[in-house]
């Protein structure tokens, strides 16, 4: 048993078999074979070994002829490894006595050798580790043959392990069969994190290199609460985690009782509690969790999942599905919030993509793309309560220009006799410190604001949260961040403009009391966090929150504030406080 530490990005516990996703495609684990199939399976193994050996020998001959014998010798060593008698004995033994599938036995045995070589810590053996993985890849390719499938075709529950998952890979997953995600790279704000949260699947990212220690089909535990992954867990550990998963479920059941109750404080203040979504199908999850509406509909997946630029109809169909589902409840649609690099539209490499051509800047630079999306949003507005929101507004000129594009577009629709909501609200994300500083001016020109804490923290503290060297400086509770939020909420209240928070911070039980104390009356959180946040709202009074906020704002450091907020949370809702 080995426990590895990564970054916890989506809560919950998953126990299941590993599916390793690599560059070669997707390896479907089939861990066991039927007892009476063992002989057939051994024959399959022999065929695979012969076929791979024949391939290597063909390569050897070709290379020897072209470059000389000594180069061909490299391949001879490969064949020697492939036909290694102790390797063969080991694999056959696992198939015969444990009824492992040849795929699993091959992967398991070779990876054990690789592990020993890695531990010997010698340079020349490190090269041999590559040889071993090469052989594993070749053998699996032969063994799996036709059965190597696409991730979207997974048909039994697995824990997906990968170096990194692209947004489209993540999006193509069938959530019924994915128990959990673990990736080697990635951070708290990455797409895997966001999607996993949206799908309510436990996930740990930023593990560092660990895939060489796992075989497809290995049993493992993903602890999405603490960012841990347990490889080859022992019985006792499995039992403990199963118990924990059970507790989780029973807490979820208790919280479910709150579904149809409003998020109302003990002194009667109503809190508008919305949810953030990424995919249309998540609208149902929002309703199941008892959200009042959708406070952030991210539209990036329309661009990332597709091979060509989405058409107006693509946009419209996705929005219409969500709006119909929400049946009159508000839906805030955020326009494209991606970097140019993600769209393959980059004139040259950007040194600092987060300070580069992205989000609203990209939309304003590419008006046809922006108009297409806006037209679809406006048409969809006829179906319910739709609000449009611009990300990354940093100057008044950005906002005015974007609003002008909207006005032009609406005029066109009007002329064409297309139906739309004439009162469709137009708002902006507040996520750049410059926008906070100038907020009084912005507030005169928008119908609402939503504070995007993820980016606000990053820009205010000058910290890239995906950079492990400085990620610990990324603190939602940094006093500077709290002051920016306080200023924004105060400004909006004075101007009579509705304000919300839609970053991860609003979905953290420890922060919600503080935010209510600072004057927040509307939050948009991951659907999975709705019940918890509602529970806290229903357990506190506004004066109580104001006192907590007052104390926290007088403190000097994020650490001090976090400790204090955890204590307060424990008093109010001990079952939700982190252990």
């Amino acid at each position, binding site marked *: 048993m080995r426990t590895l530490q990564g970054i916890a990005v989506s809560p919950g516990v998953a126990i299941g078999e590993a599916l390793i996703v690599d560059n070669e495609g997707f390896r479907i684990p089939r861990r066991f074979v039927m007892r009476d199939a063992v002989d057939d399976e051994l024959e399959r193994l022999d065929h695979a070994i012969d076929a791979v050996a024949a391939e290597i020998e063909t390569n050897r001959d070709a290379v020897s002829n072209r470059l000389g014998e000594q180069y061909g*010798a490299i391949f001879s*060593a490969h064949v020697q490894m492939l036909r290694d008698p*102790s*390797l063969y004995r080991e694999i056959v033994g696992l198939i015969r006595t444990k009824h492992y599938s040849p795929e699993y036995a091959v992967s398991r045995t070779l990876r054990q050798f690789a592990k*020993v070589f890695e531990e010997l810590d010698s340079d020349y*053996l490190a090269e041999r580790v590559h040889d071993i993985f090469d052989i594993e890849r070749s053998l699996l390719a032969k063994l799996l043959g036709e059965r190597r499938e696409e991730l979207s075709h997974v048909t039994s529950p697995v824990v997906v392990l990968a170096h990194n998952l692209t947004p489209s890979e993540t999006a193509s997953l069938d959530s019924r069969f994915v128990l959990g995600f673990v990736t080697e790279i990635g951070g708290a704000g990455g797409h895997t994190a966001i999607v996993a949260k949206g799908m309510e699947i436990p996930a740990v990212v930023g593990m560092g290199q660990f895939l060489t220690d796992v075989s497809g089909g290995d049993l493992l535990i993903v602890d999405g609460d603490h960012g841990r992954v347990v490889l080859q867990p022992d019985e006792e550990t499995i039992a403990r985690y199963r118990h924990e998963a059970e507790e989780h479920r029973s807490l979820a059941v208790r919280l479910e009782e709150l579904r149809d109750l409003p998020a109302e404080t003990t002194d009667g203040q109503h809190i508008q509690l919305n949810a953030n979504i990424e995919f249309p199908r998540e609208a149902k999850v929002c309703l199941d969790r008892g959200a009042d509406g959708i406070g952030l509909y991210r539209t990036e997946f329309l661009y990332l999942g597709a091979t060509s630029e989405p058409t107006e109809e693509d946009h419209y169909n996705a929005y219409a599905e969500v709006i119909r589902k929400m049946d009159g409840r508000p839906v805030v649609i955020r326009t494209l919030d991606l970097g140019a690099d993600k769209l393959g539209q980059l004139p040259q490499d950007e040194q600092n993509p987060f300070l580069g051509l992205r989000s609203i800047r990209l939309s304003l630079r590419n008006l046809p793309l922006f108009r297409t999306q806006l037209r679809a949003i406006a048409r969809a507005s006829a179906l319910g309560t739709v609000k449009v929101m611009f990300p990354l507004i940093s100057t008044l000129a950005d906002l005015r220009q974007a609003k002008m594009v909207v006005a032009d577009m609406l005029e066109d629709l009007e002329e064409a006799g297309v139906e739309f909501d004439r009162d469709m609200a137009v708002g902006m994300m507040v996520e750049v410190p410059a926008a906070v500083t100038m907020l009084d001016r912005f507030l005169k020109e928008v119908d609402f604001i939503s504070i995007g804490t993820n980016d606000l923290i990053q820009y205010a503290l000058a910290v890239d949260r995906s950079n492990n060297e400085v990620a610990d400086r990324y603190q939602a509770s940094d006093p500077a961040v709290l002051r920016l939020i306080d200023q924004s909420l105060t400004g909006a209240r004075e101007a009579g403009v509705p304000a919300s928070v839609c970053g991860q911070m609003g979905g953290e039980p420890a922060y919600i009391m503080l935010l209510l104390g600072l004057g927040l009356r509307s939050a948009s959180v991951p659907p999975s966090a709705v019940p918890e946040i509602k529970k806290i709202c229903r357990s506190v009074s506004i004066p109580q929150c104001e006192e907590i906020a007052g104390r926290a704002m007088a403190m000097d450091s994020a650490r001090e504030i976090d400790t204090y907020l955890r204590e307060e949370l424990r008093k109010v809702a001990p079952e939700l406080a982190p252990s």
Partner: protein
Amino acid sequence: MNNSQGLHARPAHALVNLTSQYDCDIEIIRDGEAVDGKSILAILTLGAEQGIQLTLRATGRDADDALEALEEQFAKGFGENGDEAQEQESQTSG
């Protein structure tokens, strides 16, 4: 183990090429741990560096022949030490 870099991939490969020619079982033993002398992977896991004591054990029809041939190869350092000695010489003279 005479080789300056121990029993690494190339000498191990040569060793297995040799042991595979014999019918007898051959074991290579380090600190009481015996591995199959015809298994390159097992031999590499010994991590046998220069100066390490290895014991060879052969059982079977052609065991004597095998041990004789192996002894010779170990003594010659699998044809590697000669090259290195020459290299060092040419470096000092250059």
